[in-house]
């Protein structure tokens, strides 16, 4: 029988994995994945507490809203990463153009 402690353990491990990724990774996209893990650990907590210990819906609503917020946040973050990539590439292209000219 899966009970509240199981969920909490999984969520704590997820959170730890997320923190580990954020601290050790150098790649921006991997960093964002780490953040996602942390957010989802919290969402799992909310849903589990809401189901097992309080029998109220507010935790699940919180989890839903935070999923949507996290998606929006990641979209903004990825747009910024794309923009950085584009800037760097543009700089390289300019340099190549100078050499040729």
């Amino acid at each position, binding site marked *: 029988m899966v009970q509240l402690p199981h969920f909490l353990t999984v969520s704590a491990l997820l959170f*730890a994995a997320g923190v*580990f990724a954020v601290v050790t990774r150098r790649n921006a996209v991997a960093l964002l994945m780490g953040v996602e893990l942390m957010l989802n650990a919290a969402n799992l907590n909310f849903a589990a507490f809401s189901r097992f210990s309080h029998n109220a819906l507010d935790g699940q609503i919180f989890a*839903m809203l935070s*999923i*949507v917020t996290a*998606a*929006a946040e*990641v*979209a903004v973050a*990825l*747009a910024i990463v*794309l*923009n950085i*990539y*584009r800037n760097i590439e543009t700089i390289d292209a300019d340099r190549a153009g100078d050499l040729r000219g």
Partner: protein
Amino acid sequence: MYLHFGAVLVFLLFSVAFVAIIYGISALFRPANPSAEKLTTYECGEIPFGGSWIQFNLRYYLIALVFLIFEVEVVFLYPWAVVLRTIGAFAFWEMIVFLAILLVGFAYVWRKGDLSWFTPSGSGHTDATFSGK
């Protein structure tokens, strides 16, 4: 008074120790004989050519981003659809307002040319939004 901060300290120490132990155990038991062949990409027995890290067209990421934003909003539609009958007109109009706001965002993306694969200028190159000035 500081007792509970002490508990936080224990928590921190434990997590650091945990990571160190896991790494230590795997370092003890794993064999280490690296060779160049191990680093090549596995392609169903074929001899691989080129790197596995190829460059995708930036367009894919843009479309994915736009998709992500609009798709996630469906999360709100499911619970709404379940209780729509019991709540009635109030819930209906609430969702209409929500969708109208989303629609403005959609119109914005459309008008700025992010939905077309080829840019309005016809260059067919990667980016419309990110073309700047």
